[in-house]
C-alpha cells in the first residue's frame, strides 16, 4: 500500500516538473540551504577579532619582511600598477607602507635621470653602464605611503628603481631615502655573507631563496626555519610554487639606502660587490 502510494506521489511530483525528477530535488536542496543560510549572521565580535589579527599578523609579517626588498613582493605580478609591499616598523607608530610602482618604466633614457631625481626630490648618483656590460634600461618611480595602525596616512615619499640589463639578464637598483623610523631596516654588518668597504661605505652581499607560492600556501617547518634565519623569503600570489635565488648588495650613503638585486643572476658575490662599488664611487 505504501509503495503504491509512493509511486503515485512520485508521478504527481515529476509531472509538475516537466518530468525531470531532479528539478524537484534541486529546488528542495536550494531552498533548504538558502533558508538555513539566511538565519546565520556574523557576530559583532567577528570583526573585532579580524581587526586584531590583522594588526598582529601585519606586525609579525612586517618584522620578517623588514629585510626584503620591495621588488620581491611583486615578483610574478605583471599588472601595470601594483602594490609593492607592506612593511611594519615597530615602535614608530608607522605600521605599513603601501607602495605603487608601474611595470612600465617612467623613463628609458639615462639623460632623463635628472628629471626622475627631481620628481623624487633627491639625487641617487646611478651609473649609465657598469663595467661588466650591464646597461640602464629603465627608471621607475615608486610612490610610498606611510600609514599608521588604523590605515591613516602619515606621509608619502618617492623612491627610484633603475633596471639594468645585459643579454637576457636583468638587475635592479632600488634607492630610497631613509626616514628616522626606517633605521631598523638596516642590517647589521655581521648579517651579510660578504662585505666590501669603499670610501667609508660598507656594502653587504647576501643571497637567499625566494619562493613564490599560491595565496593559500602554508609555510612548512623547513620554510619557517629558513625564514627565521633569513635564508628564505616567501611571496604569495603565484599560481604554483616557484623558487628562485635572490642576490643583493645593500649599502647606505648620505641617508639613502641602495639595493642592487637580481633573481637567478649569473653573477657571484665579488662581481655584484664590484658593481656596487662602481655606483658608490660614481656618486662621490
Amino acid at each position, binding site marked *: 500500500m505504501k509503495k503504491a502510494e*509512493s509511486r503515485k*506521489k*512520485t508521478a*504527481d*511530483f515529476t509531472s509538475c516538473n516537466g518530468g525531470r*525528477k*531532479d528539478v*524537484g*530535488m*534541486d529546488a*528542495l*536542496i*536550494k*531552498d*533548504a*540551504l*538558502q*533558508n*538555513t*543560510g*539566511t*538565519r*546565520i*549572521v*556574523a*557576530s*559583532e*565580535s*567577528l*570583526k573585532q*577579532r*579580524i581587526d586584531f*589579527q*590583522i594588526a598582529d*599578523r*601585519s606586525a609579525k*609579517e612586517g618584522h620578517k619582511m623588514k629585510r626584503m626588498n620591495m621588488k620581491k*613582493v*611583486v615578483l610574478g*605580478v*605583471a*599588472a601595470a600598477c*601594483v*602594490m*609593492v*609591499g*607592506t612593511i611594519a616598523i615597530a615602535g614608530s607608530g608607522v605600521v*605599513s607602507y*603601501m607602495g*605603487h610602482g608601474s611595470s612600465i618604466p617612467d623613463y628609458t633614457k639615462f639623460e632623463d635621470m635628472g628629471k626622475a631625481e627631481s620628481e623624487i626630490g633627491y639625487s641617487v648618483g646611478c651609473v649609465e653602464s657598469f663595467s661588466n656590460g650591464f646597461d640602464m634600461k629603465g627608471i621607475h618611480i615608486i610612490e610610498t*605611503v606611510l*600609514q599608521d595602525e*588604523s*590605515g591613516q596616512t602619515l606621509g608619502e615619499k618617492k623612491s627610484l628603481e633603475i633596471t639594468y640589463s645585459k643579454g637576457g639578464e636583468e638587475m635592479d637598483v632600488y634607492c630610497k631615502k631613509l626616514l628616522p623610523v626606517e633605521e631598523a631596516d638596516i642590517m647589521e654588518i655581521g648579517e651579510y655573507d660578504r662585505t666590501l668597504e669603499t670610501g667609508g661605505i660598507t656594502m653587504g652581499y647576501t643571497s637567499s631563496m625566494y619562493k613564490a607560492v599560491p*595565496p*593559500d600556501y*602554508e609555510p612548512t617547518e623547513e620554510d619557517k626555519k629558513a625564514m627565521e634565519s633569513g635564508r628564505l623569503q616567501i*611571496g*604569495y*600570489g603565484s599560481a604554483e610554487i616557484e623558487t628562485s635565488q635572490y642576490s643583493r648588495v645593500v649599502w647606505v650613503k648620505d641617508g639613502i639606502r641602495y639595493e642592487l638585486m637580481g633573481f637567478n643572476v649569473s653573477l657571484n658575490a665579488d662581481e655584484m660587490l664590484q658593481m656596487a662599488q662602481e655606483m658608490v664611487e660614481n656618486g662621490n
Partner: protein
Amino acid sequence: MDEKELVQRLKGGDKAAFDALYEKYKNILLRMAYLISGQIFDAEDVVQETFVKCFLHIGELKKEEGFRSWLFQILYHTAYRHQKKRGREIPDEQIAIRADATDGMTSLDRIIKTENEKQVHDAVQSLDFKHRAVVVLYYYNEMTAKEIARTLGCTEGTVKSRLFAARKKLRGKLMMNGKGGGSYEEGGKQEENRRLYFL
C-alpha cells in the same frame, strides 16, 4: 562605490575599503563556511582567517574583477585546511565563551527550522568535503560549473563529476530518510517529509 573601486582602494591600503568589503561579504562567507563545515564555531574561524588573508594578500590579486572568486577560493582552501586540522573536541569552557561571541547562534535549532532543512543539512553533511563544497557553491551560491571550477582550482569536468556524484548520494540519503520517517516525523512535519520521500 562599486566593488572594483573598493578593491583598488584596498590595494592602496584603505582600511575603510576593507571594512566596506567586509560588510558586503561577511554573511555570504559565514553562510558558505557554515554550510561547508556544518559547525558555526568552525565557520567563524574560517571566515576570520579568510578576511585576514584577504587584507594581507590583496596586493597579489591581479585583477580587481576577480575579487569575489579570489575571496571564495581563499575561503574554500581555508575551510579545507580547517577541516583537516579539526578532530579534537572544543572544551566546554570554550563553548561558553564562544556562545557569547556568536550571538547565541550555537544551537542547531535556531539555524535549522524545518524538517526539510534538517534532512537536507544531514544529507549534505554526510558528503565528503569536496563534494559538499561543490553542492554549497552550486545550490547556495548559485554558481555555474565554470565559476566553481575557478574557485576550487579544478576543471569544469571535475565539478560536474562531483556534482553528479553528490546529487546521486543526496537523492539516496533523502529518500532513505523519508522511508525511515520516524526520527523526523513529528506532527505537522509529516507532510514535508513526504516531499523528500517522493523525490
